[in-house]
């Protein structure tokens, strides 16, 4: 009689779960095409394969960061919402990502992570936080117009010839971005020499038709707001700095006799913030992790909140009456009493980390998949994305199963303890 009830389930589990599990283990001992017994070669291949090595490293990183991170975020959310009346609304907001497919999550975060700060919200937020990112220089792409100016935009441009008081420094620039040319610019004027001082002009050494490089001519615009440094002739240390006026002219007055150099500081040429490339090779793993925490926080929060509501109020109240601060109550009573629930969340997240596949596929563009890969993803990629390496794929699957064995033993033990 029990057989009739169990038979359908046994059929499904036998054909779709048990049979392929053993078949995959067996298959991992054969070549990719399945025509040759190769022993443990696939496992050797797996551990020497660069992408699989990256996958293992990434999986370790995930297991180190994610379970702790998700549990911590869930705990904070659960504790914060405990006494708030609109907790349900908050929980729904945090819960939404859990119902959305990981594929849609991928599209969502691809939109968030777009590199151009004008389009990607994450980079736009970084631009919004002033101070993290330097401001763009007034002339981000300018180049010297003649060989008289040397150096690089990163270190600043220096006039090659030394100047003395009474000299006039001509700092001509070209290759100025269209949106950085002053719209209502004033024609540059070559300033008069100044007794006991150094004068000069920074100007756009270019006019329709070209003009003569190195000469200040009519119709050539003065560049306002450029920082000019006066540097000591020998050491090159900046002594004084000033800013150019409307027509691009500047002056250092009352300069002691001697040799100096005139330079345009590097901040003038600072490139605008182009945005972090979240989906590029170096940031892709943290980027996917952020998306994952965004998804999983709701899960952790709900489980922990349920555990929290099971803590006897009396215990907490007693501690508060005894004069414990909220933080002490949290640290000494809430967390220890929650330990079993926190463990459940933590372990569930370790298992989830080992199974992640969708997020890598959906978020990482083809060019950074090698850097984002995880074991469960690498197994699919090697076997099915056109590579057809079934031997290697079977070995990765078997390795993955091995990683689950400790959890399996814990589960079985717990059940047997409960049964007794």
């Amino acid at each position, binding site marked *: *009689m*029990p057989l009739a*009830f169990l038979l*359908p*389930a046994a059929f*499904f*589990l036998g*054909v*779709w*779960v048990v*049979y392929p*599990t053993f078949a995959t283990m067996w298959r991992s001992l054969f070549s990719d095409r399945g025509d040759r017994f190769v022993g443990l070669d696939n496992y050797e291949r797996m551990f020497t394969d660069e992408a699989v090595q990256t996958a293992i490293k990434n999986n370790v990183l995930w297991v180190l960061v994610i379970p702790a991170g998700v549990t911590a975020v869930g705990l904070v959310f659960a504790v*914060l919402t405990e006494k*708030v009346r609109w907790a349900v*609304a*908050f929980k*729904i*907001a*945090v*819960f*939404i*990502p859990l*119902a*959305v*497919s*990981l*594929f*849609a999550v991928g*599209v*969502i975060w691809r*939109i*968030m992570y*777009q590199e151009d700060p*004008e389009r*990607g*919200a994450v980079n*736009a937020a970084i631009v919004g936080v002033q101070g993290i990112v330097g401001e763009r220089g007034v002339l981000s792409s300018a180049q010297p117009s003649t060989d008289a100016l040397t150096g690089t935009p990163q270190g600043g441009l220096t006039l090659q010839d030394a100047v003395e008081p009474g000299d006039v420094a001509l700092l001509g620039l070209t290759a100025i971005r269209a949106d950085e040319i002053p719209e209502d610019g004033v024609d540059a004027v070559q300033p008069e020499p100044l007794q006991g001082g150094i004068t000069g002009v920074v100007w756009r050494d270019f006019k329709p038709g070209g003009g003569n490089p190195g000469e200040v001519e009519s119709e050539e615009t003065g560049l306002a707001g450029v920082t000019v440094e006066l540097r000591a002739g020998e050491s090159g240390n900046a002594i004084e700095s000033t800013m150019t006026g409307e027509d691009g002219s500047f002056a250092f007055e009352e300069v002691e006799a001697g040799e100096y150099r005139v330079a345009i500081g590097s901040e003038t040429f600072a490139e605008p913030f182009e945005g972090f490339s979240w989906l590029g090779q170096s940031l892709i793993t943290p980027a996917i992790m952020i998306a994952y925490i*965004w998804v999983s*926080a709701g899960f952790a929060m*709900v*489980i922990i909140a349920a555990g929290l509501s099971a803590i006897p109020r009396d215990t907490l109240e007693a501690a508060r009456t005894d004069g414990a601060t909220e933080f002490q109550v949290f640290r000494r009573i809430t967390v220890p009493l929650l330990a079993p*629930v926190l463990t*459940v969340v933590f372990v569930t997240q370790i298992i989830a980390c080992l*199974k992640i*596949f*969708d997020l890598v*596929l959906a978020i990482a563009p*083809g060019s950074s998949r090698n850097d984002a890969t995880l074991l*469960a993803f690498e*197994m*699919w990629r090697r*076997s*099915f994305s056109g590579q057809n390496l079934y031997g290697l*794929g*079977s070995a990765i*699957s078997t390795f993955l199963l091995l990683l*689950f064995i400790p959890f399996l033993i814990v589960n079985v033990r717990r*059940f*047997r303890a409960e*049964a007794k």
Partner: protein
Amino acid sequence: MATVAEPQPVVIEESIATKLVRALGRAPVHLVLMLIAILWLIPTAGLFVTSLLTPTDQAEGGWWNFLFQPSAWTFENYRNMFDNDSIVDALIITAQVTLGATILPILVASLAAYALAWIEFPGRDWIFLTVIALLLVPIQMALIPMFSLYNRLSLFDTIPGLILFHSAFALPFAIFLLRNFFAGIPRDLMEAARIDGASELRLFFKVVLPLGIPAIASLAIFQVLFVWNDLLIGLVMAQNNQPIAPELASQLRQFGSNLDVLAPAAFFSAVIPLTIFALFQRYFVQGLLAGSVK
């Protein structure tokens, strides 16, 4: 200060002050929670707004520029999506697979769970232990052998093939959850029915199944969400008849140039699980709790 005179008014005064301090002290909590909630909603809002923009507006700048500019919103992308046969077909396939792969495993699992909970037979605990062990077998373990088996049996790229695959992998969790729930049915109730001469089958349909509705509901919601959102099984076991997520995954390659196709499809494919989640939130949470506190 030294005397402890008139304690009563002092107590009242303190309680008002404490209340005030507490209310003020809690203001930052509300503020922080509000900020977190907004932060958590931003990405989904971004997808939604993006899906409502014309390709020109999408290229022009960040979606947040259009957040408070409903005049720029258009349902044009959605209209195009419903004219796109491959997407509509994929949605229909997803619905069929989800329906089948929710009903079938629940039926099969509740039969097995009933036997494991209420019928005495030798080796019962061992069978349940096996089920618990199978809970952890990753889907990756089945892909390669089932791929070739499906090709031989002509189940590859078919809706029944997807339904059967999903059903099988849903069983360990379903049996586990339902067996524990069924085991909680009062023994008296079961024995009374047995004394009345009810057959096991009758007992199952008339007593256990109706009582198991809450657990079955949680399970159904989980399964709907899981199957609807699946990417892996659909990607490997189907090719021309793929459900929506794998169907769209192939379009991710041109991300950026086809945002007007991807964004509405991704959002629309999320609307159905979101609705189900919103309607049955209680069962979902119950199921999460029952499933995780293993």
